[in-house]
């Protein structure tokens, strides 16, 4: 498996498939007992977690596992201080990150007073602040409402366009379908398939194997196959386009026949 800069990758699979274990290998929290993991050519067994984390930022699933500071500002600055940034750079980076994640008005609030979704964004900000080249998100969409998910999606795409790689560990099939990233499908500790989301998520066998549920659009289009529509459609936008095309085709045909 290889992750390039600018990649957008989703790791999917059933509970206990080894998704989080794989994610923890990326910044050296876990070292491989077999095989090799390299980050920019450096073997993870030869570098410390702190050194690797500078490049690979992991956002953990549950924000409660990392929030401890008195204010959101301090929380976000914590890692920057650990990595030895200059004080004025810390202040600037914290401000920028909070702004980007719509948290600026909470800068002086205690992170424990925030709602679950907001805490999750603070956790994300705490990692984004040092601008790692590779960002790993463990279940980023849990507890987020639709708007926040949309915002997260745009944010990830924006990071991608800056050349950052984003790896997402998730169960959220619909979210993956909307983003259409590369998908690495795991089952029982092994990678069972890799490919673009629309290929993987519309494949009945693979879906079954990884005990996922097909995204709604894929379900719809697997039943529309007899009308000459492709089966590998998972996101709403492409579905809309294809259906509009089909409709106008039908309209013309109806107009001609009458």
């Amino acid at each position, binding site marked *: 498996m290889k992750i390039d800069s600018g990649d957008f990758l989703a790791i999917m699979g059933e509970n206990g498939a080894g998704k989080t274990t794989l994610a*923890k290998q990326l*910044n050296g*929290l876990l070292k491989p007992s077999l095989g090799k993991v390299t980050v920019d050519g450096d073997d993870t067994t030869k570098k*410390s*977690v*702190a050194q690797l*984390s*500078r490049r690979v*930022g*992991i956002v*953990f699933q*549950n924000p*409660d*596992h*990392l*929030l*401890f500071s008195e204010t959101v500002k301090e929380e976000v600055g*914590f*890692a920057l201080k*650990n*990595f030895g940034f200059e004080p004025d750079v810390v202040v600037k980076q914290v401000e920028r990150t909070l702004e980007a994640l719509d948290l600026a008005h909470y800068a002086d609030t205690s992170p*424990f007073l925030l709602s679950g979704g907001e805490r999750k964004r603070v956790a994300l900000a*705490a*990692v984004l602040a*040092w601008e790692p080249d590779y960002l790993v998100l463990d279940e980023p969409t849990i507890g987020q409402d639709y708007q926040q998910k949309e915002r997260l999606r745009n944010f990830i795409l924006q990071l991608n366009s800056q050349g950052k790689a984003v790896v997402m560990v998730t169960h959220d099939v619909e979210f993956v379908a909307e983003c259409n990233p590369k998908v690495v499908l795991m089952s029982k500790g092994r990678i069972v398939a890799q490919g673009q989301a629309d290929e993987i998520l519309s494949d009945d066998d693979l879906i079954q194997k990884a005990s996922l549920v097909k995204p709604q659009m894929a379900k719809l289009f697997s039943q529309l196959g007899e009308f000459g529509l492709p089966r590998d459609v998972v996101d709403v936008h492409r579905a809309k386009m294809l259906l509009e095309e089909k409709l106008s085709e039908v309209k013309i045909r109806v107009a001609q026949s009458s």
Partner: protein
Amino acid sequence: MSLRVLNGFKFSSLRTPVHRLDPRAKFMLVIGIIVPSLLFTNVYLLSGLLLVQVPLLLVGRVARRWVQSLRAGVFLSALIFVVNFFTGPLANAVALTLRFLLLMTAFSFFFMTTSPDDLGLAIDKVGFIRWLSRRWLGYPNALSFTFTTAVRLVPTMAVDAQTVVDAQRSRGLELDKGNLLKRVRNYIPILIPLLLIAIRRSLELAEALEARGFPGKEGRTSLFELRFKLVDYALLGISLAGIVLSFWVFFHYRVPTI
């Protein structure tokens, strides 16, 4: 890491003769080992008591985990040895270190081979505890339930602790860096989330209990009933005899350290 020690107290769900012993009889055995080890400092006796437990650990198939937890306890044993070496004779230092290892082994043997459920049932059967619980907390099962919950939460807390350590290490926290004061301060980002998780969990637990009608009525029944088997009676007898003998020897003879 210090968390390895906890591994030696985690229950492993196996079906061995040792696991099937009645918790009450097994606990009496542990007392039967602890009493003489606290009464005497004879090196031969202590080594003997330690060795007696090895076959039990082997039969219970927990010997490997026991060795692991011992390895984690090396630092504390070394500390005990050094302190006693400089304050008294060598034999005494050896005896006290052995005593520490012995206590640790006995308790870890008990907790590794007794399921929290069985333990709860066993405590429920002890009349004195029921009486005390009624007097103190107004309900005969409350005390045993508190104890079972505490024991049950240890592994969960260990998992949480590991996740918190991972999360903070991913943010560039280096636990074993800096001078002594700095190292102690390094633990703040770990302890605060852990503490908050524990508090939050206990509140949730209380709500869940109330939602399920705790404490309920007096005569609670259980699916599995503990019953003494022949082995259990034998074990109980031997342990009690050992304890009585220890006290008798303690009050009538002076046993040398070596």
